[in-house]
């Protein structure tokens, strides 16, 4: 594996809190999805990962993004805006995964095109249950729109 150019990971987790990041990684690893997760600490790092010079096909390979809202530098909402501007990530499901349950944040997230808004539970049981279900839903249950460039079905 070493030396191979950045294997695209289909789930991007943007989380600045070290403990929250560690817990999320632990939960998803326990659920057998650890190898799918790429973890970054803020919006800028996420944007570099997706759209930077050496990003290659990462943005196109992305199947889900979990964004915290309050992040240093570029916050989750700003990153969401950027993802909706870029063709490659325009239809990637974005789940806001945050401690904030403020109406203002929920409003802003949905207005900017978030697909889902989940408040992080404090209890670990709830947290792992919620996180696993959310990721499984978007990866295993949800059917994404067809890839860019394919034709919509003809009317009639």
């Amino acid at each position, binding site marked *: 594996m070493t030396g191979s150019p950045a294997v695209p990971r289909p789930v991007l987790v943007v989380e600045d*809190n070290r*403990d*929250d990041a560690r*817990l999320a990684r*632990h939960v998803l690893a326990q659920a057998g999805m650890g190898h799918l997760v790429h973890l970054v600490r803020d919006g800028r790092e996420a944007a570099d990962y997706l759209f930077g010079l050496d990003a290659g096909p990462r943005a196109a390979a992305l199947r889900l993004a979990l964004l915290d809202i*309050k992040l240093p530098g570029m916050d989750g909402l700003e990153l969401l805006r950027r993802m909706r501007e870029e063709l490659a990530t325009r239809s990637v499901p974005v789940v806001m995964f945050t*401690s*904030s*349950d*403020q109406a203002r944040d929920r409003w802003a997230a949905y207005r900017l095109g978030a697909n889902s808004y989940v408040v*992080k*539970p*404090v*209890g*670990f*049981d709830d*947290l792992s249950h919620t996180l696993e279900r959310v990721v499984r839903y978007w990866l295993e249950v949800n059917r994404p729109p067809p890839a860019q460039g394919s034709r919509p079905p003809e009317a009639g």
Partner: protein
Amino acid sequence: MNLLGAGPGPRVEALHIRALRATPTPLLLHAEDGEVLAASHAWTEITGYPPEDFPSMEAWTALAYGEEAPRVMAGIRRLYDLQAPVHEGEFRIRTHSGEVRVWDFHSNPVGRLPDGRRVVVSVAHDVTDRVRAQREVRRLSDTLEDQVQERTQEVRDAYRELEAFSHSIAHDLRAPLRAVNGYAEILLRDHAAWLDSRGEELVRSIARAALDMGALMDDLLRLSGTVQEAPTFGPVDMDATAEAALERVRTAHPGYGGRVVKGPLPDAWGSAPLLQQVLVNLLDNAVKYSAPVPEPRIEITAHTGPRGPEYRVRDNGVGFDAALAPRMFDIFGRLHGDDFPGSGIGLAIVERIVRRHGGEIHADGTPGAGACVTFRLPHPRSPMP
């Protein structure tokens, strides 16, 4: 030809002149050709003009009214044709010192001089203070509404700031709590082999304490929300509200085996969601404290008192010492220690909501013989047609 300077003249009795001058209000005697026959001391004192400065009405109006003098003079000329007293109204005069005073004039025809000239006496009331006070009242009432709005906005802003502050604190505190609970749980699940039973118990306590603090923060946020949000008041069907509250409490305590009896409840005036919260918190306590006794029982009753409907939630649970009742409604004012779960905020929320409705609440209890909380709400108003 001024009489005043000339002493007792042939045309007006000296005694009359002295009496006139001594009048404690501004008073002026003048003839139709504009000659000022006499002015009272009050007149000259208030205006600051000595009598010799205004031998004629032209001179007086020029001093007192400046540019307005011709208009005032025209009014004065009409006075000499009067057959009856007239109230001329308020005039703004300028005194010798430059101060503006408001005089309210009455004029009265008093007859003719021997030479045939008609004479008028003009009396003024100095109403400067009253006019100023009126103007001030008008100004205050004009600006009062603005001031109230301004203050209200300030208070609203402060509330909003406070709310944002509590939310940001809650956000910042939840992350470490999640970490404490999460790491403790991972320790228990994945590393239990390295813990003896005592160690496992301790880690469990750590996990539980973090959860408790999370719940406590949620309650505190709810309390501050209760205080801040502006509820919509209207008629409330308390029967339906109590049923909904019972449903919520039953869901939260599925194992509760007690009997719950609900009598008919009169309608209230208030906010249905807030009143439901009141009943949920009271019933939650009743369930919690009656669960350990044999044959637990909860009664919800009401009657309409002279000052409005009174609702009562009574249980036959462990009760409490009535002397401690006043403390029950304080934030964190817990009477039972750790034997019973709870953050100690539930009754504080209840008390605030009842108070916001303009009502009252009190609790009675006896150790071992149950507790009873009664709250009164104001009389329902009739809804606007």
